[in-house]
């Protein structure tokens, strides 16, 4: 029984971080229908930045995450204006290829800047753990779980309670109606990218001390985050969080009871199953096909 309990603990903790990593992707897809294949690269970039802040200046990676949101947000706006807006005008179907190209460029740039050797930050708590009854709760994962919950709640608050959030929701659902009240979808797009990439900074911070990473880790993380948003409803932030939890638990249980090697397949399998059966996401509301008379 403790084995199951332990698997659940690991699963939930890891899963919350998966959800955190996917929030940026969820936002850009949910609002703008853009799949940002560079999400993995952005995560790794943030991870490297946090690692450098920790290695050079001794700044705790969790704090580093907050600092890194700024350059990431700027990067998001730049990407939106220089690349996304342009390719959307040329050929919408190629947007995903463009972001895919960005991912590879980013991976290369990261490798050139930091080298190919694995990196991992090791703050004080990275291998400490609490004990609750017979269960071990690793400290580092616990903190990132808190971070994940916090960021998810903060994003929800922004979306539901601020003018910007309302404007984003409005423009996503009804671009023409939004224009009638003075909300310009293009400006909203820049904000969405800024928020999405800023939230990615926190995911990267988590990676920096939870996992070992190299520049090409971005490939693994994009697969995983795609899985999360596909499961959770391409566009629902709480849905993505729940999906992350689900994936984390599934992975932990597979690892414990089947084999560690097959656990690697767990993240990608849902994409295939979900997209074949219910493309709009398992937790998304059923989309209506009608558009009036």
């Amino acid at each position: 029984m403790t084995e199951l309990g332990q698997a659940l603990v690991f699963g939930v903790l890891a899963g919350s971080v998966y959800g955190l990593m996917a929030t940026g992707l969820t936002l850009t897809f949910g609002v703008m229908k853009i799949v940002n294949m560079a999400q993995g690269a952005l995560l790794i970039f943030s991870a490297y930045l946090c690692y450098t802040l920790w290695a050079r200046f001794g700044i705790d990676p969790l704090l580093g995450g907050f600092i890194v949101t700024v350059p990431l947000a700027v990067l998001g706006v730049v990407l939106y204006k220089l690349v996304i807006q342009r390719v959307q005008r040329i050929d919408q179907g190629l947007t995903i290829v463009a972001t895919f190209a960005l991912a590879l460029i980013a991976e290369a740039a990261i490798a050139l800047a930091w080298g190919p050797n694995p990196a991992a930050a090791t703050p004080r708590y990275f291998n400490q753990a609490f004990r609750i009854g017979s269960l071990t709760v690793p400290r580092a994962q616990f903190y990132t779980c808190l971070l994940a919950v916090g960021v998810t709640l903060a994003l929800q608050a922004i979306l539901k309670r601020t003018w910007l959030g309302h404007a984003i929701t409005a423009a996503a659902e009804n671009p023409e109606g939004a224009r009638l009240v003075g909300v310009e979808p293009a400006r909203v797009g820049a904000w969405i990218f800024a928020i999405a990439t800023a939230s990615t900074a926190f995911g990267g911070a988590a990676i920096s001390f939870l996992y070992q990473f190299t520049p090409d880790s971005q490939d693994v993380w994009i697969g995983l985050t795609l899985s999360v948003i596909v499961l959770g409803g391409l566009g629902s932030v709480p849905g993505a969080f729940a999906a992350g939890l689900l994936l984390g638990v599934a992975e932990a249980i597979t690892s414990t009871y089947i084999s560690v090697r097959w656990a690697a397949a767990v993240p990608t399998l849902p994409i295939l199953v979900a997209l074949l059966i219910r493309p709009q996401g398992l937790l998304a509301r059923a989309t209506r096909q009608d558009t009036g008379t």
Partner: protein
Amino acid sequence: MTSNLVRRAVITLALAALAGIPLVSDDLYYQSVLMLTFMLAIGASGWNIMGGYAGYISLGNSAFIGLGAYTTGILAAKQGVSPFVGCLAGGLVAGLAAAFLSLVTRRTRGVYFVIVTFAALELLGVAATTWSGVTGGSQGLALPLPTWSMAYQNWPFYYPLLGLLVLTVAVSAAVRRGKLGLGLFAIADDEDKASGLGLRTAVYKMNAFVLAGTFTGIAGGIYAYYVAFLNVAAVFDIVTSMLIVLAALLGGRGTVWGPVLGAFIIEPLANLTSTSLGGADAGAIRLLLFGGLLGAVVLFLPRGVLPTVTGYCRRRQAPRRVPTRPAPAGAAGAAVPAHGPRQDGDPHGDVADDVLEACGLVKAFGGLRAVDGADLAVAAGRVTGLIGPNGSGKTTLFNLIDGTVRATSGQVVLAGQRIGRLGRPARAHAGLARTYQLPRLFGSLTVVENIVIPERRLSFARLWRHRVTAAERARAIAMLAELGLAPYADTSPAELSFGQRKLVELAQVRWLDPVVVLLDEPAAGISPALAERLADTIRSLAQRGTGVLLVEHDLPFLARLCQRVYVMANGKIIASGTAAQVSADRAVVDAYLGDEVALASAEPAP
């Protein structure tokens, strides 16, 4: 036509040169670069059939290489199978995987499809690594060494790859030249419209995908023998997939030679960078280069090198576009229309069979009933009108009849057959056709191609015939001539005016020789002269026995054409009769002018 001769000469020379290289030179290094180039060209050409012709972009085509390579490798290593059989088996497995992928497109399209291909590649990589008992896992798989003499050097790999490339390009050209290609381009432009015209899009896509997968798979098999050692990371590799996409996009997707050109640019470049760059950063610089190139192509050269160059040359030759004279028909043959007039309907008689009946059709969207129990009948050889105010459900009714939307309840009967359960292509095959308020034509096709594309019947042999046969061309041009559009035969629909596009859409419908035609506001937004031409076309349709159901707002137009008019309001049919009867009907006037509102206390503001 000298440009054609020049092209052929260049291609023949290049082929001769490539075939001759191993004969004159012993440099194994250059041969290996060329072999990798051939492989990339095969992969890119295959990708092009899926992504360039049919519009389905895949990020996972290196999976076909991997499947081909591993199938061949496993058969060789475990069963000692001969290389030739092994490669073909590799192609078969990859082809089957491609067929499965095409089935996926039934529900998963666009961006979702791209994600699926990405995930499938990842998953196959994981599976290959995990099934280490069979595949050797991360340790890799060693193939038995070739049994032939070392004196042959690379020839047993070089020539098969070159031959496979020639075959792939030839097939790609045949596809593009033929009806399969025509259908694929139409699917890329407007898949739903294509199925509404009777194209069995699932079959077309499967053909395209299987061709792509099989050739790429065979190439993978040959590759496996060449390198004699396989590891998962090398073949199920996202970067290889990316290079395939890059080669096709850079060269020009949708063309025959574009992907080959792209491969011949990319692969040598890749090789050059890996040899001239040294050090730990080499891999990163290459990735930067190719990622950057892919991004640059997408942003700045989305059509690719070949179309841009040929477009530039073409514009320099012909100053301003003038409708080109129709080119002479391909093969000799009298210009005889392929179909004679159908059995006449009886436009003036009182008794005519109903070819289309809608019984109690209901469509509910949540609580809203867009169509609330509609009954109507269309007689053969007669024009029937359908009018009603905005929001009365006319377009939804059309969508129910043609199958775009599933009915909540009720029946549609076409020539005595219930078609409620049939898909759109099947309904077209049964004789149903439809036009749209805003005409939908295929932008990548010429006007003539647009007209000849509808199909009443699928046959595999037909897929490989010319896009437009001589007889078809003659018939189409005759139709265009009747409409006064003959000079536009070989132009793109984008050059036509709105009204002209409507006429072409109508010609498309006539091509199907339909039993019933649904016309959605054909006269809207066009000049009176064009409207007259349209009316004539509709009359001739009816005279040939077709039943026509026409939605229009212009009552005089309807009155000239229709023997019977239905009036729809709030999802129901509220009146029917001749145009005169209906326009005098109180209920109809009410429906148009709106409900009476108690006006006792309502006074306009001062």
